[in-house]
């Protein structure tokens, strides 16, 4: 059984009295430590699928399980707890809390988990060091570049060492060099920590680096391909750029 199991997933939206069928029956199993990308054209249901897997949205039909727990049976509070303890989110627009510094943004999740101050600061600083932002720890997001903000967002997502990280178009607002560096970082974390990464993306660079590429068209899985892990080695940004 996979870490994430999706069975008969359907999601319909009502928009101006018209039913929009965003997801039309998806079955998936994603294992621990996978580095997967969900790709497809706009409106194919990538983000909707990611949101449902992350417990941010409820399916119209079907079920999603994380480690055997059916998300449909959880209360909003239990879903909050699940997101807090087991899932990290990375958003396209970084979505950091603007009044908190980089360090505090990373600490935030640990603070919610009740980790004591010393431990919190130690772990958060270690993560910032890992994402190359130790020197920017006390800057607020407004004083950081887009790439730096997204690295803080990655730090926030991984600091509590969740099983799963869901990244919605994480490179969409970044230039190619920064995007490649961020992917290197996430890939390394995936290898080192065995954290499951699931991206929704348009970005061919992300698709090329994913070990598994799930391609959606009109809310259905069009193709689901797995590639050899050897395909991925850590590349320097220059190499990434050249390849592009």
């Amino acid at each position, binding site marked *: 059984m996979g870490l994430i199991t999706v069975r008969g997933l359907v999601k319909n939206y009502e928009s101006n009295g018209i039913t929009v069928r965003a997801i039309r029956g998806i079955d998936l199993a994603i294992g621990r430590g996978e580095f997967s990308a969900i790709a497809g054209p706009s409106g194919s249901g990538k983000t909707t699928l990611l*949101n449902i897997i*992350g417990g*941010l*949205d409820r399916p119209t039909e079907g079920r999603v399980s994380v480690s055997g727990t059916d998300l449909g049976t959880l209360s*909003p*509070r239990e879903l*909050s*707890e699940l*997101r*807090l*303890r087991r899932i*990290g*989110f990375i*958003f396209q627009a970084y*979505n950091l*809390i*603007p*009044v*908190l510094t980089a360090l*505090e943004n990373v600490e*935030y*999740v640990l*603070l*919610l*988990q*009740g980790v004591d101050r010393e431990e919190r600061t130690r772990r958060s600083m270690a993560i910032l060091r890992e994402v190359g932002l130790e020197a920017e720890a006390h800057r607020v997001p407004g004083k950081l570049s887009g790439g730096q903000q997204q690295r803080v967002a990655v730090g*926030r997502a991984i600091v509590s060492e969740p099983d799963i990280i869901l990244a919605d178009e994480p490179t969409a607002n970044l230039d190619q060099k920064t995007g490649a560096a961020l992917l290197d970082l996430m890939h390394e974390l995936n290898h080192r920590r065995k954290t499951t990464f699931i991206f929704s993306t348009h970005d061919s660079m992300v698709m090329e680096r994913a070990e598994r590429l799930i391609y959606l068209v009109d809310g259905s899985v069009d193709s689901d391909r797995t590639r050899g892990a050897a395909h991925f080695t850590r590349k320097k940004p220059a190499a990434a750029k050249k390849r592009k």
Partner: protein
Amino acid sequence: MANARIAIRLAWRNVWRNTRRTVLTLLTILVGSAMIILMNAFAKGGHDQMIEDAVASNTGHIQVHEKGYWENRTIDYALKPDGALLDSLGKDARVRGASMRIHADGLLSFGNTTAGAMIQGVDPEAEKSVSTLHSSVLPGGRYLSPDDRKSIVMGETLAKNLGARTGSVVALISQGFDGSIAAEKLTVAGIFRSGNPEYDMALVLMPLAQADETFTMVGYVHSITLRLASPSDTAAVKALIAQKTDPRGIEVMGWDELMPELVQFIVMDDVSCYIFDFILFMVVAFGILNTIQMSVFERTREFGVMLSIGTTPGQVVAMVLVESFFIALLGIALGCAAGWGLSYYFQVNPIDYSDYAKEMAVWGVTTVTYPADATALNLSMTALITLALAMMFSVFPARRASRLEPVQAIRQL
């Protein structure tokens, strides 16, 4: 603890996120609460002054009568002063003065003119510690002295109506305690202007010893009038006297029973004051609601993210409420300081209407200076109500923030 830390840290920084809006909200709370405090301080100071003026001019804080006197107010209801009671009251620090009085209605004649008068026999020295009429005697005349017998002082309007002046000899006709005719020729020693139209038009003061003789009182008096150091002691001193006297024969009345019309006026004034308070409180509350509402609306996406990464709805509510608490607390602190400062200024420099005293007297208003008095109760109640309203009015936007659907909230621009 962690929840509290998050809520406090985020709330404090969010307060200063939009400085202009926070400053405007603080100003709303500051001006609103300062106005409430000042208005209530004027009400309290003005009412206390009215009570003090009324009490000091003649009524006193407490009067002791023969039972039934106040209802009938005839010469027949008189009591024999209890020396022991008077002694104990004289030793009581709460009692500033006690004066025995004889009251009678009569006719005063001067030349061909006759006018009705309220005669009040008083001990000139004791009376000085109870009423202020001695200081209202117009130049050219004088107040009663302990040696006086057939001298009187009378109100200015009464003197004018009679055509009498200082030194004039007027004739008094009344009824004695024993039913006999009380008649006396009395010399006007002085004329007073109390500012109270009723007193100025009819009140005549004569020495207690003379009144005892004229009205054949044989040692009886109609009232023992007490002036206290503080009106707040009225109930306690009243209870003490009631304890030491026979309730079947003696009535002990406080200033509020002696002047029910004044109490009624104060109650009516308080009601209008509360209405203004309510309006001002609502202005402040809606100011806070508007700020918090806007602040939450602007941060919809942020709340969506917070909820997505594991913040519970309860923690979101706490963050918004703490933010509101900080704004309200700051505004209240500033408002209380401003309200107290303004009140203190007007306590030291009361609003003075003495230039309009005559016009005001026509309407029965004898108080011409209106000081403010900001009490601790005024400050604490204003602060507490403002804070409570701020928190109540913040619950709606806080709940709205906590109930956001993360997916939709994150999409918000």
